[in-house]
């Protein structure tokens, strides 16, 4: 009888742990196949047929239409340069450069990839519409309150993420192809 209970316990806990681990793994992006560039994370084989099972399962669940490597690259930052989670109470600057691409956009999203509502209806910036210094450098301020220059509003308290999309980039999604210094910095200026 005692053995029966033990076996039952093993089955129950094993099943529970397995399901929990699966739920956890599928609620976030694949732990494999990721390239880290400072605060940015790049899913190397995001939507390609070479994607690992975790990436595939993730794609199925989200229903996202992934960017092909030939089209562009998508980099997501959920933390700042110091590795701390992006928080709506703080002010960040993003810049001054991005890797080579014909166009790029910087958008603010929530942790599930949806644009965040804000009264200014400014969900992102395009490379073709930002202010630049004479040498091509730029600064985009990410903050809840209005800032001069290019201001990307944070419409909701709590954590958020930044999506940098490079369109028609000659870079393959390999760690060696993108220089760490080429990705924009996500610098925390201060917290309110």
């Amino acid at each position, binding site marked *: 009888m005692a053995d029966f209970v033990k076996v039952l316990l093993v*089955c129950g806990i094993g099943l529970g742990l397995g*399901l929990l681990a699966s739920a956890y793994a599928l609620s976030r992006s694949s732990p494999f196949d990721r390239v880290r560039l400072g605060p940015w994370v790049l899913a190397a084989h995001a*939507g390609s047929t070479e994607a690992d099972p975790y990436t595939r399962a993730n794609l199925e*669940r989200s229903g996202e*239409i992934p960017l092909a490597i*030939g089209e562009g690259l998508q980099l997501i930052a959920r933390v700042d340069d110091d590795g701390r989670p992006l928080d709506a109470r703080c002010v960040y600057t993003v810049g001054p450069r991005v890797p080579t691409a014909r166009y790029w956009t910087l958008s603010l999203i929530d942790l599930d990839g*949806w644009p965040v509502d804000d009264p200014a209806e400014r969900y*992102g910036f395009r490379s073709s519409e930002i202010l630049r210094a004479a040498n091509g450098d730029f600064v985009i301020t990410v903050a809840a309150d209005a800032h001069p220059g290019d201001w990307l509003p944070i419409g909701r308290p709590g954590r958020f993420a930044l999506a940098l999309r490079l369109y028609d980039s000659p870079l393959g999604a390999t760690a060696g192809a993108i220089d760490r210094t080429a990705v924009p910095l996500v610098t925390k200026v201060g917290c309110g």
Partner: protein
Amino acid sequence: MRGRFAVGEAAAYVAATAILAALVHLIVVLIVPLVATRDAFARLEPLGALNETILLPRAGPSATLMPYADPAVAMSFCRYDLTRGPIRITAPSGRAFASISFHTRPGLVFYALTDKAATHGVIDAVLATPEDIRALAAHDDEEDPSRDLRIAAPAPQGYVAMRVFSELPSLYPEAEAEAKRLTCKPEPVPP
């Protein structure tokens, strides 16, 4: 003696639990793509018929169909089913970035073209099963073979997505109009 036995037994149970948990996890991860009902194809299905070009709503807080979509990019798509024969995909290319990606049913990309591959301002390709591609090639004129770009699809069902970049917010409607000009038409295979 008895204590050591109990420790060994406990270790065996813990190991069994861990192995079972790992197995369950593995099975779940591998099975999700097979049973997921909310894959991209399923989400796109209610929006329109096969081979019909549908414009996706602009990414924003109220558009909750596709996550990780870019608000600066207009997107359209058409679903295909190659068991009914090949389809020809054409799309105009404007002045900004435009691209076409070919996806399997679960959403994986197997091919992509950008506006750089356009000839005379049109991106043109034929999507077919490997068997149909062989049939098309067999009917090619030996002197003057077809110059179509023929893409072999790894699976008979899926969707084609088009992205058009808008350089400024005011140009978004123009990008949408361009994305709507994607066409996916059945291509006859010679008997």
